């Protein structure tokens, strides 16, 4: 079975939720018209990324009426979009929701909040505390928001839990303009996408934004990489683009038959090793 995914490589306005909602509706319409079953927006697509103190101003609960237009728009096409979630206990999270058939079916809260260099996530947001998979028409899926994907354990945990798709909504700033190569960040991201896809035999759907915020350029270059390492689709760098790619739900099985790394994975050894190091009890069950 083939499932068409649309990547909305857009440039959200910083701190302008209403404008971004209109922008989303427009891109969702285009994705729907092109036959996509899921449209994926970048990290914090409804609010913009470098929010600083604006984070509290644009935050809302996952079931806030302000997000109803997204739920409404998801009747004929699944939507994955980013927003600032205010939890019941008033913590702010960088969140990615998945809306399907008019309902919010999954929320992932960014676990790894980069707070170094040009990043200050940890000052303004609280971390998520789990990597849970969920299912939709495309298959079992895990969401890794930007920095989440840079931690090797994130896609590993998703693959171990049965995910065949890792969605990675990002707001990746472009940097590194040395001669003789691509943009430094682009090289790193492509290496990650292809490595995870090939060695965990999953689809990696990397969705980056474009545009500028306070002098920092987001470089785009979104892509879908298949479990056989092929790049199914790739967006241009720095320009807005709606990019379509097909996910072949049987390719995962074919690749895993050829390359059963995941089947042979020894989670018990991983767990025993970590539990031992942290002094946690671990009981062997064999």
């Amino acid at each position: 079975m083939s499932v068409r995914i649309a990547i909305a490589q857009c440039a959200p306005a910083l701190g302008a939720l209403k404008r971004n909602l209109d922008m989303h509706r427009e891109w969702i319409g285009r994705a729907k018209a092109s036959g996509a079953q899921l449209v994926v927006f970048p990290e914090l697509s409804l609010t913009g990324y470098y929010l600083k103190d604006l984070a509290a101003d644009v935050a809302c609960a996952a079931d806030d009426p302000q997000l109803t237009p997204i739920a409404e728009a998801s009747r004929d096409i699944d939507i994955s979009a980013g927003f600032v979630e205010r939890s019941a206990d008033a913590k702010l999270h960088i969140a990615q929701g998945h809306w399907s058939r008019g309902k919010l079916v999954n929320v992932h809260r960014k676990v790894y909040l980069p707070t170094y260099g040009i990043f200050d996530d940890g000052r303004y947001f609280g971390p998520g505390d789990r990597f849970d998979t969920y299912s939709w028409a495309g298959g079992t899926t895990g969401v890794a928001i930007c920095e989440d994907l840079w931690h090797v354990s994130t896609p590993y945990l998703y693959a171990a839990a049965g995910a065949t798709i890792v969605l990675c909504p990002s707001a990746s700033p472009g940097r590194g303009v040395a001669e003789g190569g691509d943009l430094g960040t682009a090289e790193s991201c492509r290496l990650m996408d292809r490595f995870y896809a090939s060695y965990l035999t999953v689809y990696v759907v990397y969705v980056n934004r474009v545009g500028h915020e306070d002098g920092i350029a987001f470089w785009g270059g979104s892509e879908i990489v298949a479990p056989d390492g092929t790049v199914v689709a790739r967006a241009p760098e720095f320009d807005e683009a709606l990019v379509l790619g097909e996910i072949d739900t049987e390719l995962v099985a074919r690749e895993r038959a050829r390359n059963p790394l995941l089947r042979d994975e020894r989670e018990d050894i991983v767990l025993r090793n970590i539990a031992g190091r942290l002094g946690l009890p671990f009981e062997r069950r064999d």
Partner: protein
Amino acid sequence: MTNVLARTGVIRPDPKDPSPLRIDEVLVRKMLVLFIRDETAKARLRRAVVGVSGGVDSAVTAALASEALGAKNVLGLFTPYRNSSEESRAHAHEVSRKFGFTLEEVPITEQVDAYFKDRKNVDKVRVGNKMARERKSIEYDRSWPDGIVLGTSNKTELLLGYGTQFGDMASGINPVGDLYKTQLRELAISIGIPDAIVRKPPTAELWVGQTDEDELGFTYADADLVLYHLVDRRLRPADLIDHGFDAQLVARIRELVRRNHYKRVMPLIAKLSLRTVGHDFLYPRDWEAD
């Protein structure tokens, strides 16, 4: 194939190896054009004003702005003082002709001389600073109501603090502030800035015979490599000296970076209340209207 070697080899601090400073000019040009276009629009402005001195930094800035906004939306200002050279004027006009933007001449001799006329013991640094601030005040005046003032201070000048605070260092946005002087020259050649402008000795022309490298006491090529390893690669001064860099040069550059840091940050505000501009009232500048 030198570029491939530069990319695949280990980057070592070596006073004889400037290759780590090389940039991908095509990529940089694209990023800077998009930067000018996008950030000007986010400021709800549509024109750019650039002080065009005849030197390479402002030539690159004006050329990039012309590509980003269209040459008809770029105003270059050549603001000569009585000691400014004919060569500078010729170069400013050459760049304007080549990239198609309008260049206006606004002399600053009268107002600067009038201000200093009856003042005693005025040293040349004060006159130079006054000239730099006079020029910037004219750029800001001419930016009204729909233009943004583009900065032309490069990364070397910013890090060394080699500039006048609220003078040449002032701007709305600065496209070239993350390029060392030697990188900016490389970019200049690739976007077609005339050779004579790229190759001539850099000068602020604040007094007759002034050149940057004489005044600083070292060359841009040397300074850029030291700064690159200290700043971009986060090495310590002692690491550079161990690798054969001149100890005095490294110490002097490090001290200039430290001493002039105040020029690179917003003025300090005395913290009193529960929430203070600059301290804990932290909003992005590109804060957009909903």
